């Protein structure tokens, strides 16, 4: 076949921009440029007017530009320990949640990839369906299970395993359960996408050469599924760091994740410049993980389609 020599989608260079420009411009204005505003406002000072911060860049009557940038907000982030502690706490929580998601999600994805085609499509639908239902309502539903008179405590009391209801709500454990429960599908789907494409003759070859199954898994399956492991981990890890709903609804006062701190700074203290500085620093930390995710995407998310 000589199809590749046929003319490609040969729109003229100018007409191509009719297709490229609308999404590019929209995302520039409403996704990228906002970060510029956050960066700028992080150098402003709080002020008691609308909007509640001073102008960083202003122009006087003679059309001269004035720049009044302050580093106070960043200095404040360093002096008030709440910020550093909540960053670290968020990182820790997200890391261990991701690890547990991986430990549960990998066998699940592996099991699905080993079933027949028709079973696969049904199981995938079963995994995807919660992803389509409301995130907020799922977190809320979890509360019905783990609260003091919830199903879990009732079941454990009935079985005689405990004599006093466990206090799970408003604890660190509840935050972990919430994150794992909510983000598990994000781990399973990319893992399945890579495991499904695995060439099983490699496993047979490994078995023929005398490898026990666990050895074949470590030598063949695991390395080949690394793109899925990384994509899935990033899909859980990055949003989990900034999680707001789960620590607010399920966690206690000491589960200070950075998302909650940001929310309070914004709506409670109405200190927008400090909130912007927190967001900027947070984003700097996220650039690395997001770049890793970008690198491995394309190998994942096909299962979402």
């Amino acid at each position: 076949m000589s199809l590749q020599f046929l003319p490609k989608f040969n729109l003229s260079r100018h007409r191509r921009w009719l297709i490229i420009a609308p999404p590019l411009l929209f995302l520039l204005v409403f996704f990228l440029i906002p970060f510029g505003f956050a960066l700028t406002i992080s150098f402003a000072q709080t002020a008691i007017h609308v909007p509640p911060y001073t102008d960083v860049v202003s122009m006087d009557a003679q059309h001269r530009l004035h720049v009044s940038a302050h580093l106070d907000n960043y200095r404040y982030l360093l002096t008030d320990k709440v910020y550093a502690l909540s960053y670290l706490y968020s990182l820790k929580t997200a890391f261990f949640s991701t690890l547990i998601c991986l430990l549960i999600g990998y066998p699940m994805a592996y099991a699905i990839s080993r079933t027949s085609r028709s079973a696969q499509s049904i199981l995938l639908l079963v995994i995807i369906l919660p992803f389509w239902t409301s995130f907020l309502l799922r977190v809320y539903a979890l509360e019905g299970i783990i609260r003091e008179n919830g199903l879990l405590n009732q079941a454990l009391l009935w079985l005689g395993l405990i004599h006093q209801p466990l206090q799970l709500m408003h604890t660190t454990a509840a935050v972990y359960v919430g994150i794992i429960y909510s983000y598990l599908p994000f781990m399973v789907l990319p893992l399945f996408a890579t495991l499904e494409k695995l060439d099983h003759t490699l496993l047979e070859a490994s078995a023929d050469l005398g490898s026990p199954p666990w050895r074949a898994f470590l030598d063949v399956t695991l390395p080949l599924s690394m793109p899925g492991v990384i994509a899935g981990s990033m899909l859980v890890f990055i949003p989990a760091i900034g999680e707001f709903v789960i620590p607010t609804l399920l966690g206690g006062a000491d589960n200070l994740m950075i998302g909650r701190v940001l929310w309070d700074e914004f709506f409670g203290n109405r200190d927008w410049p400090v909130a912007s500085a927190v967001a900027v620093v947070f984003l700097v930390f996220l650039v690395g993980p997001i770049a890793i995710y970008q690198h491995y995407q394309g190998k994942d998310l096909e299962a979402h389609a």
Partner: protein
Amino acid sequence: MNERPPSMLMTVLAIGVALLYIPMLVMIGYSFNASPLVGIWGGFSTHWYRELVHNDQLIGAAWLSLRIGFVAATAAMVLGTLAAIALVRFKKFRGRFALTAMVNAPLVMPEIITGITQLLLLISMLHLFGWPHRGFLTIVLAHVTFCTAYVTVTVQSRLASADRSLEEAAMDLGSGPVRAFIDTTLPIIAPALASGWLLSFTLSLDDLVISSFVSGPGASTLPMVIFSKVKLGVSPDINALATLIIATVGVGVLIAGVLMRRADQQRLRDLQLAAQ
């Protein structure tokens, strides 16, 4: 690979699936509980559903969310499809890297960051141009941003795997490139467009964090109202509302899945017939 997977793996799968579904099933069960106390079963009742009908605040918020979801999903479907075409079909153009980054980053970006930065943009725009006032429009604009990302990824993979030969044949027969695309490739990627729209619609309906930042006084979406109620604890009318939402989404996704599969099989048959 169709041999039976080890039973241990299947056990983990079964437990995982059970964990995903048990909380929702329990909530659905409690929505029919006559007793307002969550831990106690007071008999079967549809009381909380009847209560919902008279809750004007919830109905108003639901209507607002539905309208926002419809507009945002439709706009995102158009923008996302254009972005997918650009990324799959045009190998080199200025801004390709930026576009790739901007359609992937919203998928993982913590909502709280997107919400804050978008609010700062909107405030600055209002300050400079006196427009737009926060409310319906600003929520739609914010939702279109992350929905476009989801549509792009969904359409992108479908478009990349679509067979180009039909389109090229159409061009050989004298169709212009746009016409050839609309006549041949668009029907092939249509299911991805539909699922992108549906996904956008449900994500928009569900969004709490970004909406809370970019909405203005008087524009409370359904998740915002639910969140303010849920913060105070479990309430039976929210159980009923959640059941209705989950049932609607579940049935919608199942029907969409069946329809898309049927459309796919129909296309396959058509192609086989055409090849004979």
